[in-house]
């Protein structure tokens, strides 16, 4: 892992300013936001990602899921996937057969790409 400067800005504006100095992803981004880090740090360990600066956004107030006036949902940038999947509003309005408490079968059905693959014929290896 390459060395980096670590920043924890106190608000969103400071975070955006810190990140605005980066090259684009295609150019080899040198400033990255750090949230959970499970993708970024994994890639940094392999030297695939080599940011010179990490901007930690975990302590900014982005962890909320809120209803919007037009009936939508505003999902903060650092909301965890698991929190979102089991959020009452999400289960009520966005998942089929989800009025009851979640079961493994329901979540497996809605995201089981393996079943979709099995249903289609295998591709030939050449």
């Amino acid at each position: 892992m390459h060395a980096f400067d670590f920043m924890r800005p106190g608000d969103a504006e400071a975070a955006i300013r810190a990140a605005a100095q980066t090259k684009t992803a295609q150019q080899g981004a040198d400033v990255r936001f750090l949230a959970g880090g499970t993708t970024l740090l994994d890639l940094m360990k392999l030297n695939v990602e080599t940011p010179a600066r990490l901007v930690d956004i975990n302590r900014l107030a982005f962890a909320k899921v809120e209803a919007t006036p037009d009936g939508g949902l505003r999902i903060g940038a650092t909301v965890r996937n698991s929190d979102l999947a089991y959020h009452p509003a999400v289960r009520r309005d966005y998942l089929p057969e989800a009025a009851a408490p979640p079961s493994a079968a329901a979540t497996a059905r809605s995201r089981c790409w393996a079943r979709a693959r099995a249903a289609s014929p295998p591709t030939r290896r050449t």
Partner: protein
Amino acid sequence: MRDPYLRPSDLTRRAFLTTAGASAAAAALAGCAPASQPAAQAGAVADAAKTGAVPVTLRINGQEHRVSVDPRTTLLDCLRETVGLTGTKKGCDHGQCGACTVHVNGRRVNSCLSLALMHDGEEITTIEGLGAPEALHPMQAAFLARDGYQCGYCTSGQIMSAVALLKEPCGRDDADVKEFMSGNICRCGAYPNIVAAIQQVRGNR
């Protein structure tokens, strides 16, 4: 040949370890025990400018630990190597096996894919903080009762995940427990007994 990965601000591991070792040796020569807090702290602060190490304060199992680490140090390596709590294991170091599971502010985290720096000031719970041989956490007792381990290497992570699961919206069935524990793998195949232990604690067995 110059290391192609080295940037001017970069620090090689060798340089970091050399200076860290030198400061420990200097402290020993001065007659202070290397483990004494003030000497270690002074050495760490003096080193920071040279080595790029930064101070981090972690509350681990209810105790405050002030350490000085390379910013790249994962929470896992900090717990094991810097603080010396080796109950948390390094299985894959890439977030796939779950052996490194700890709690941060009560939620389970793969400590191998988290930086120590990220958790400055936060509450960390490791397997050492869950219970003691004379005062086992109910989950530890259930793992014993149900023989939920063989070699034991995945077990710390399994137990830490299982304890966090108790506060998560996991369904009642074994299939639900398996889904919620799917981030912790066991090469010995103790899965049936692990599920049984967890269901026992949840009152479903």
